[in-house]
């Protein structure tokens, strides 16, 4: 198994935890700069302690994640992270210009010597407000944008694209991806529709902000679809994202995590603005499995219950290794994408070190 270190680039300072968009009236440029430096330091440590990948993601208008363009963060990481793959999980392609996404990903892949892992996302419900895109078109825009990006990476001659949602008269990107024909591609496959699309297009599957039980069901469905389309995914085709905090004792790790609200915000980004969330839900954004999708986004609880649901790895190396094995056994994930409790200062750094030195070597043997 492999492990990725996901650092969200959280703003370290007072800000609303219950609204979206989050007003900037408490914003401090100094704190923001320190937050960015801390983020880079956490990524650097992840590389130093042997994490296989480092991960960044796209979110907008919120202090939880100050990477509205994850490709910019990835470019900044090229010389900070010397060895690990740089996983961009990922751009929210229905709300973006897909040609620009193809260009930026190819650029970072070239800058990094071919270390980019790509996750193409639809984004959370609130992201559709960001650039004023109708969420009812989200899935169709995603699918078309995916095909544009792939063709922009692989077609050597200038071509026009006559789509439904996108129209371009001439596409011929430079640089090309360093990894030929293109970097590994994943997508979020929580919903049945996404599972089938990923299987049909030979993409990896990602599960995030969910429970082990829900992800296991979705992964089973994804593997069944892969069978229908005539191929069998490897464990590395499945990424599972969850929280992680380690300490010298289980009690200490739980206490640390509890002190920062369990390592997750009281209300997830998608659910903070009820008007936005309900409008997006009514648009059909969640697809045919809407109840499961909304329930997983609202899943909250005490640390103990989150451990039980497979939402977080917490404890000493021995304890965490058991939790890792359980995820491997139930879900069959080959990559765990670990989101830090980033605001614990030295304890966060110690947690990275403990995972890297005590858990990762044994995980690699699984």
């Amino acid at each position: 198994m492999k492990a990725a270190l996901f650092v969200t680039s959280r703003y370290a300072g007072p800000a609303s935890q219950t609204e979206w968009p989050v007003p900037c009236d408490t914003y401090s440029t100094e704190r923001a700069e320190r937050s960015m430096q801390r983020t880079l330091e956490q990524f650097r440590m992840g590389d130093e302690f042997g994490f296989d990948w480092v991960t960044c993601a796209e979110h907008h208008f919120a202090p939880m994640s100050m990477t509205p363009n994850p490709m910019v963060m990835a470019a900044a990481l090229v010389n900070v992270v010397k060895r690990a793959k740089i996983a961009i999980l990922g751009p929210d392609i229905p709300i973006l210009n897909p040609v620009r996404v193809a260009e930026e990903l190819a650029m970072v892949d070239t800058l990094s010597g071919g270390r980019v892992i790509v996750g193409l996302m639809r984004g959370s419900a609130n992201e559709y407000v960001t650039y004023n895109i109708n969420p009812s078109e989200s899935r169709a825009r995603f699918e078309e944008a995916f095909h544009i990006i792939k063709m922009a990476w692989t077609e050597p001659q200038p071509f026009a694209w006559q789509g439904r949602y996108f129209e371009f008269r001439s596409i011929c990107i430079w640089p090309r991806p360093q990894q030929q024909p293109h970097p590994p591609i994943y997508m979020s496959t929580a919903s049945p529709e996404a599972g089938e699309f990923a299987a049909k297009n030979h993409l990896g599957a990602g599960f995030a902000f969910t429970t082990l039980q829900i992800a296991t069901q979705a992964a089973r469905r994804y593997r069944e679809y892969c069978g229908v389309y005539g191929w069998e995914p490897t464990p590395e085709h499945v990424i599972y994202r969850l929280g992680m905090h380690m300490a010298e004792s289980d009690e200490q790790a739980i206490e640390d995590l509890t002190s920062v609200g369990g390592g997750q915000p009281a209300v997830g980004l998608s659910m903070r603005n009820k008007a936005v969330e309900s409008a997006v839900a009514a648009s059909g954004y969640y697809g045919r499995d809407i109840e499961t999708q909304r329930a997983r986004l609202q899943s909250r609880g005490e640390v103990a219950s989150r451990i039980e649901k497979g939402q977080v790895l917490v404890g000493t190396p021995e304890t965490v290794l058991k939790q890792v094995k359980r995820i491997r056994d139930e879900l069959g994930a080959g990559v765990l994408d670990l989101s830090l409790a980033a605001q614990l200062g030295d304890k966060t750094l110690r947690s990275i070190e403990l995972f890297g030195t005590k858990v990762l070597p044994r995980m690699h043997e699984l």
Partner: protein
Amino acid sequence: MSSEQAIINEAGSAARFSRKSVDIDGIGLRYREAGAGAPLVCLHGGGGLRLSRAHGILAEHHRVIALAIPGFGETPADPRLATLADFATLLNRAVAALGLERYSLMGHGLGAGLALAMALARPDPVDAIVLIAPVAIRPTRPAGGKVGSDMLYVHPERHGAAEPLPASVAALQAETASLLFRAFEDEAFEAGLKALQVPVLSLFGTVDRVTPTDLARLYRTALPSSYIAMVYDAAHAIDAERPEAVASIAADFLARRERFIVSSDIGLINP
């Protein structure tokens, strides 16, 4: 429903295609015509004359003339037509007989090859050429040869499936198509394309298994003034699958030719 009514419905627009014919050396060449404006001469593919909504939309601003190639459907085969040049000469004479001084060509499948052959034989009056899922440059044929309706359409729900042809018509069409496919595999024809100065836009459907998007680059490099476009989510009958998408880029190319790569869309939202 009359057959003419069926054609109008198929075309899906107000443009009314009337049935006509022109006689060239005793060959009664049948064609359908609608609209007014800059003439656009259309050549069908191996399945015979088939109008789509794209033709109807184009007829709103063009005089659209869709020829039935000898050996396909209503126009009989003729033993005097043995080479690509024979077909091109006959079709060019038909266009001249219709009084067209300047025109553009649009060809689907093997009709794309014929459109190129017509322009090679008589380039001066041709303003622009649009090729749809072209079968003109090697490798030309799909594996196995036969193009079933599952290869023509991935979205029959959008346009209705085409009526199956009578067996005798289908057999004659297949024979003529085969003759033309062989004729395209000709070095002199391909060499001639390299000198063709008429601007050409070639459209490929992203889910077309007959002429897949990988072939587009051949057209881009074989012709001096050549543009390729991928029509998303369309199989081989691209114009039936995505009529608005085909008509919109074709009309823009016919109107502006090479300059079509620069957008002329209005971006202003709230003046």
